[in-house]
């Protein structure tokens, strides 16, 4: 299992660079991860990230974009504005979780 050092911490990551141990994550690290992909975290950014963390804790699966939108009540359009390009994957990365597996 590869590791990488981010903000002075050694993290377990997969072959793409996604964290594989959610226990190694906290919000300070999340902000660092966001910076690395060009996102400056604001309260608006934290809302979906916190949902991802709490949903993952229960479902053991990273929520898809649609699930974030319907369950956390954040319009999909806003998620694209907050995490441009590939919002589902970017949010998963910032939240220290695997990429979502679901199709929709």
């Amino acid at each position, binding site marked *: 299992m*590869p*590791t*990488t*050092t*981010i903000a002075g911490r*050694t993290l377990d*990551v997969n072959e*793409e*660079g*996604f964290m594989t141990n959610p226990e190694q994550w906290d919000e300070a690290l999340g902000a660092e991860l966001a910076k*690395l*992909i060009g996102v400056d975290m604001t309260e608006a950014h934290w809302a979906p990230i916190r949902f991802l963390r709490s949903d993952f804790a229960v479902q053991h699966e990273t929520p898809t*974009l*649609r*699930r974030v*939108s319907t369950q956390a009540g954040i*319009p*999909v*359009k806003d998620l*694209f504005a907050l995490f*441009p*390009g*590939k*919002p*589902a*994957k*970017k949010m998963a*990365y910032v939240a220290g979780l695997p990429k979502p597996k679901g*199709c*929709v």
Partner: protein
Amino acid sequence: MTDTPFVPSFDSDASEGGRKLAIICSKGNLDMAYPGLILANAALGEGVETHLFFTFWGFDMINKKTMDDLKFSYLGNTAMHPPGAFGVSMPQGMAGLPGVTALTTKMMKKQIADLDVPEVPEFLDLIHGSGGHLWACRMSADMMKLHEEDLYDGVEGIISASDFIELTEGAQLLFI
């Protein structure tokens, strides 16, 4: 271990390389509506510029009067089997009996809902909200005497086939 953080490359090909996807939706059956919607949604989530062109029976997917009421019949579909019962065939003649299409439609809608996949109108909302472009075919609209106000609000316009080909220059194309 390296000093440079190992970060996934999110903005590689799709967003910067200008990858585009064009999907032509020509069917109005419930089961044939979903492939285009699911692929469009997946492409948008990957940062791919996505255009859907609704034509002929595909108009039922964006016609406000029909979009919520697409149906599934297994008539002519020999691959049909009862849910989970692979290898068990369903008599084709039965598919034509009154009430069977309503029943199979209900069954399929339930299976789709069980996966938390939205119905067609909500799926269009999802695609529209994700920045997908929806276009209606001019010839189909003329044939069916439909106007923009009859169509899903997110449809950007009724355009000719030539216009669609022009605006999807360089796109990968799917005909469904």
